[in-house]
């Protein structure tokens, strides 16, 4: 990798502006930075570092029974065979009730948002004897860290964890899987948005590409219950060689607010779609949508489709191809005195044209995920709660062909509890 000194200085200055509202020269805009060019060479031959991921044969689904009536919640770990759809329920019923799952490097990684832990399971060992690691250290407690996503750093024992509940200085934690008792061994500070009063960048999902970890940053105002976005969302690049924010154009300012997940737009990892949820307690106003981002140029390529056209806030995006992707929407309608929450619905879109192709699911009260399988043939939709009037769609995991038209079938897979998150291994 090569570095452009001029760009490095400019970007440092921009970071300084963001962090301390002062810099010797006028701040550079994203357009300026785009003109300068990429900080690193993200040519395809340099992408997808690390060992090739074996073809996934299973889905791992975490489930949740939320706590209520004086009882704590609970969560389960369950697997689903991708070919035979064989469900193995309740492999572990001791995971947290607010969780997240990833599968990388042959391992299954489960985050507990509530207690601030990472569990590492080895499916080859029958998931037995998982390793449990805190997402904190002695000074920055794990219990309030609210880990949102985890990514294993290729060819190393390191893992990056985004910590939604932490301040900017502790927004990302580096964990060494070889020393689990240490918890976080290094903190990676993210630049704080000027207008965000709560001090937390709300670092969310991670996408690895070309020696960098790209982190969506939501910059929400947590001083009120509306979690209002304080500005456009950001993607921040972490240099995996330095375990620090890339000082060369490390911040991508998005057009939309409140970015959630990534999905590759095509076969490479450098062009991605992000689901910008916008101001998700209000009716869609164009502040969010599906956005295309070029991680090579470190710039947004613009909105594919706005939330106002989707008539819902995208919670996640999962692409099958350049012409078909699925978005899980939060539907909010205009109302008075407050806008009305309707539910979640999965829709198909054509990212190449920005067209809404149609609905895939009924409106459910809580559709936890809609993800395309790694071989791009199947769509997995997890329904945690149905619409309370129609009682549809039913609770469970629906598996349908990922053809953009097939709607959810009559009966989902029963996975024990309401599904919450999914990954493939």
């Amino acid at each position, binding site marked *: 990798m090569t570095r452009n000194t001029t760009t490095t200085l400019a970007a440092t200055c921009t970071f300084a502006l963001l962090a301390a509202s002062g810099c010797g020269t006028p701040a550079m805009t994203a357009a300026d930075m785009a003109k300068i060019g990429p900080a690193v060479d993200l040519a395809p031959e340099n992408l997808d570092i690390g060992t090739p991921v074996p073809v996934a044969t299973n889905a791992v689904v975490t489930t949740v029974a939320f706590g209520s009536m004086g009882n704590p919640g609970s969560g389960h770990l369950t697997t689903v065979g991708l070919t035979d759809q064989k469900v*193995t329920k309740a492999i572990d019923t001791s995971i947290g009730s607010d969780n997240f799952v990833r599968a990388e490097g042959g391992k299954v990684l489960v985050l507990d948002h509530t207690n601030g832990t990472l569990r590492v399971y080895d499916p080859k060992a029958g998931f*037995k004897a998982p390793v449990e690691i805190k997402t904190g250290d002695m000074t920055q407690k794990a219990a309030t860290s609210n880990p949102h996503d985890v990514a294993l750093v290729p060819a190393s024992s390191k893992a990056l964890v985004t910590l939604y509940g932490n301040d900017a200085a502790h927004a990302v934690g580096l964990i060494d899987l070889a020393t689990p008792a240490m918890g976080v061994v290094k903190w990676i500070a993210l630049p704080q948005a000027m207008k965000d009063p709560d001090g937390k960048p709300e670092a969310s999902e991670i996408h690895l590409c070309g020696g960098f970890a790209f982190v969506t940053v939501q910059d929400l105002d947590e001083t009120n219950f509306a979690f209002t976005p304080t500005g456009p969302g950001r993607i921040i690049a972490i240099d995996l060689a330095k375990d620090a924010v890339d000082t060369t154009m490390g911040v991508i300012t998005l057009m939309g607010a409140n970015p959630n997940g990534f999905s590759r737009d095509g076969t490479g990892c450098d062009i991605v779609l992000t689901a910008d949820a916008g101001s998700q307690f209000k009716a869609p106003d164009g502040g969010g949508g599906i956005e295309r981002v070029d991680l090579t140029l470190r710039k947004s390529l613009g909105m594919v489709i706005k939330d106002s056209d989707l008539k819902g806030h995208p919670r996640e995006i999962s692409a099958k191809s350049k012409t078909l992707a699925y978005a899980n929407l939060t539907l909010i309608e205009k109302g008075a005195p407050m806008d009305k929450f309707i539910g979640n619905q999965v829709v198909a879109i054509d990212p190449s044209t920005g067209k809404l192709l149609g609905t895939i699911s009924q409106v459910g009260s809580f559709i936890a995920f809609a993800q395309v399988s790694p071989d791009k043939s199947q769509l997995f939709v997890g329904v945690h709660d149905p619409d309370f009037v129609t009682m549809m769609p039913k609770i469970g995991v629906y598996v349908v062909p990922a053809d953009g038209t097939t709607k959810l079938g009559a009966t989902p897979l029963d996975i024990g509890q309401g599904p919450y998150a999914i990954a493939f291994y």
Partner: protein
Amino acid sequence: MLDRRTILLTIGALLALATARARAQIKLGTVEVEAEREVEEGPEVDAPAAVTVIDARRPSARVSSVADLIEREAGVQVRSTGGLGAFTSVSIRGSDPTQVAVFLDGVPLQHAASAVVDLSQLPVGGLERIEIYRGVPPLELSSQAIGGAIHLVSRRGRPGAHLRAAIGGGSFGARSASVGYASGGRLSVDASAAYHGARGDFTYYDYSGTLIDHTDDHPASRRNNAFDQVALDVTLGSALARRGRVSIGSHGFLKIQGVPGRGTDGAGSRDARLSTGRLILDGSVEQPGILGPAIDLRIDAHLVYGRTLFSNARGEPVGSYLPASTDSATIAAGLRGRLQAAVGAHELWTLFASAEVEHFRPDDLLYPRGNPAPSTRVRAALAVGDDVRLLHDRLALTPALRLDAALSHLSPGLDVRGQQESGANSASAFASPRLGARYRATSWLTVRGSAGYLQRLPTAIELFGDGAFILPRPSLRPETALSGDLGARLEFAPRSPTLSATRVTLEGNLFSRQISDYIALVPSSHALAAQNLPGEVRFLGVEAIARLRVATWLTASLDYTFLHTLAAGGDLAANTDGKELPGVPRHRVGGRVQLAGGPFSCFYEALRTGDVWRDPQNSDGNFIPARTLHALGAAAGPFGRLPLTLTVEVRNLADLRVVDLPLGGLIHVGETTPYPLVDRYDYPLPGRALYATLALQN
């Protein structure tokens, strides 16, 4: 543990008080010291429904509220967030805490704004007794009581002049002081003032949020768990002409407490505060023979003002984990009237009417724009009941019908998709029939049963949300319950003079309750929302109660409850149909043995709670294991003319603080992990605690 300085101060203060009292006796002349009279014959024996009456007049440093007095009773399960003064809810026969109605002298304490009455905010200093109606409650206490009712009865003045005082202290900074006075005659007075407080800094087992990794487990001290509360209760009564009586009462309460949070490493708070204030003014007029020699009239009126302030300025990990400063107020006013007419010598008709208006004003001080609008609810009830005595009064039948109506209003209008688009008014009316029967088969056997169809209206928060994490659901239907029980009571009292005051009482009850439109908070992708569950939730159980009293030297009690709960006919959450409710034990048994000789006595108590599921799916291995908590105590006094009693008691005698929690799932078969002794929402409970109380009572 108990602070020695606290003990010395306690004893010193009590001795000083006793000396002062002795001087007062001399000055006033001879004042006989009498043992506290037995609780007046309550409804326990004669009522067709299952009811427990508890004497609330025993001062103790470990008893700061109603919660601390009722935990061992049959059918009752209290759950707290840990330690003296902590939030405590009550469940009766497996009900949800929102379904248990609580009354103070007939004044409903469960208001539109709050679904659960926090028992820790119900002080006992001004109470004479606590009545727990486990089945169908009396006509006048039926509103909202689909899961049973708890009626707190205030002390009344009594003949003579009676002073009472107590001071105590105990582990974890527990301290208490109370004083009261009662007098009787044409004007009767009972006044009491009580203070309770504690640091609440007990040590518990902190598993640090890691169930598998034990290397980070450590003992921790509970922080920000202190409380201070004062209660002032005054009741005045005066006789009127023609055996009439008027009485007024004032009940003030103020509590300031820390909100400690879950308590796992880093998940505690330092500054979050909850302040609660409540003032209840009530009055009643009773006039026998008002419209005829056999017609009695009673009219009650009440005014309730409650205010709750919550502050979490630094966004500590409690509540929403966000900075918060809220100030909510509830004001309620009500009127109740009861007309009783005797028809012949064996029948009594009751006509009852009530109306109450409540206004709830939430105020988010940090984010006023997010405030839900104030809510107003008007409720009215009309009821008629009969009490017919047949077969020479051996058989009592009590048929009754109660009509309830309610109108809830939120302004300005609010609409939710597909449901009551036109506004935020919610109206409902409900007819509630019930029947009770009691048959005295012999002098020692009484059979009784009751059945009723009751409802609970949704609270304002359940209907309209809280502007934050609970979404509005104005179309929510009331919960309805079909309840019934059948029981027998056997009472033996040998007539031998050598066994005077000896009595054995055995009671058994079968009970059943079926709740439709069960209201539960369920999640959406956005927040929680109250929702009527499809199908029904059923409860089936048995209560067995034994009481033994042998002369004056032995008393013993045993309360056992078997409870089978079942979610039936619906499956709102996955795989819950046919499963038991989480958090409700199948088996629960409480026992107490007391030995007494002269002024000395000692007691032993045990409370065993069976396994409880942690999830509604009843997943294998996912339960809190059964546990038994022991207590031991001793008392000395009163001594002749020195009306002092010293009581010392140890709770959680075995210092149980760690349990073996099963790790559920296919990969953990047979595995357990050390886990703190926990209760409501897995908040930790204290280990062994010592309390001492010195009481003066004449």
